[in-house]
């Protein structure tokens, strides 16, 4: 898609995210077993399945309404820290896009930046803490650099940066979240939250390209 994306295309992108999470949930849980409590994949999969069920019930929503629906559903179904963190990310994104019928590349970049702001406000994590933030910060920066291009190109840049960032979390010692209880033992594993962020952005980018 070269122009903006409307409600139906945002809904399609969210369905793509749900499919990607379903495909990756075993791997996300495996990562979380290494340094967390081993439920990240299951929790995210349960959340996005619930999102899809609600999207099916109401096909006529604006992009902002869809993002808010995702936020509220993740908050009520995912649990743990990921529920409020991803929920807040989508909620801030929804607030940023407002009731616009179409999102252009600028709006998508702003939504990503707002999502990052929400995660940081809630979780108080900074880059290097081995969290979602480690993937989202480079993604937002890459999206910013790609400003002026198409929605697909902005999301592509964000997804690639997030993907690269996942590997950089491997040597980190966790300073936030449940992995921080492991101290030095958390090093040597990719962060499950950074990984799920990369999965989400990859799916959004692929959907935008289609």
């Amino acid at each position, binding site marked *: 898609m070269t122009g903006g994306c409307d409600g139906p295309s945002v809904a399609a992108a969210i369905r793509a995210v749900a499919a990607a999470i379903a495909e990756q949930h075993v791997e996300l849980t495996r990562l979380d077993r290494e340094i967390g409590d081993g439920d990240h994949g299951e929790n995210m999969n349960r959340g996005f399945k619930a999102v899809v069920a609600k999207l099916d019930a109401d096909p006529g929503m604006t992009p902002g309404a869809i993002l808010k629906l995702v936020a509220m559903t993740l*908050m009520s179904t995912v649990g743990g820290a990921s*529920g409020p963190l991803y929920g807040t990310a989508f*909620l801030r994104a929804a607030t940023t896009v407002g009731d616009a019928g179409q999102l252009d590349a600028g709006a998508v970049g702003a939504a990503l930046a707002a999502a990052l702001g929400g995660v940081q406000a809630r979780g108080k994590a900074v880059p290097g803490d081995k969290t979602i933030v480690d993937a989202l910060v480079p993604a937002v920066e890459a999206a910013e650099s790609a400003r002026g291009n198409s929605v697909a190109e902005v999301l592509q840049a964000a997804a690639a940066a997030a993907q690269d960032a996942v590997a950089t979390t491997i040597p980190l010692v966790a300073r936030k979240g449940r992995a921080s209880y492991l101290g030095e033992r958390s090093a040597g594993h990719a962060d499950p939250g950074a990984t799920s962020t990369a999965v989400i952005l990859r799916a959004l980018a692929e959907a935008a390209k289609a």
Partner: protein
Amino acid sequence: MKKIINDPGNVVSEALIGFAAAHRDLVRVNFGPDYIVRADAPVSGKVAVVSGGGSGHEPLHGGFVGAGMLDAAVPGPVFTSPTPDAVLAATQAADGGSGVLHIVKNYTGDVLNFETAAELADAEGINVSAVVINDDVAVEDSTYTAGRRGVGGTVPLEKITGAAAARGDDLAAVTAIAQRVIGSVRSMGVALTPCIVPHSGEPSFVLSDDEIEMGIGIHGEPGRHRIPMEPADTLVADLLAPVVEDLPFERGDRALLMVNGMGGTPLLELYLAFGIAAGLLEKQGIEVSRSLVGNYITSLEMQGMSVTLLRLDDELTQLWDAPVHTAALRWGM
């Protein structure tokens, strides 16, 4: 594991059904999302006080819903924070138009979920303020949380804050009273046995027959150190000293002394402990002007207890004495 349960996954909702049936004069229970509100909620023109957290600490928090204390309580799964949608729904049900104070125990999950709920409530036009209680002196940074945990002090905090709201204080004033209590209350606990979370079926930790864990959290998180079982005189002194030293409480202070059971310790032993603690405080010139003994913030069937000390002034004493009518605390009405 022997427990009076059916499906471990339904323990909380089945207990809520019973709670609603037992206390229909005091509360209303909503299911999906789960929360407990005063039967007469929302109370128009009064600041609402809302708390919540994982289940397994009964009577906290649902047992403290009623006139003079909490307007609503949000129970999560056992030892797991409730989700923001449930906290939001309880906040909306309790809001009488004068704002809502969230009382949050300092655990990562509780703080995240209540903060998110507050953001949602704000978007709905409800004025929400929040306080975080962190009275546990056992550890600065416990294994399971960032910073000190919220434990026994939560009970007098909810009582006194609820009384401030009941007398008509506005949201800023109710919040200030809550902050004053948080600044003046300290606690520490000990476990003699672990507890078993129904859905896991396994003890939360292992203690040998002659060992106790000093500085236990209310979910069985590790504390300061593990020591051999000791006589009550020594045990109470070891629990009380760090509590007194931390604030510190000083000669001439008046205080509320709360000796709280973790769920599996008989009142006989709690009163025995209270007598020892009161005697030790008297020797230090600290007057125990108010008291509370019983099971108020528990860890399922864990044996053990916690000691909480709250420095009182005239106003906090008055608010503690103010009438309250809840399932677990009742006086003056």
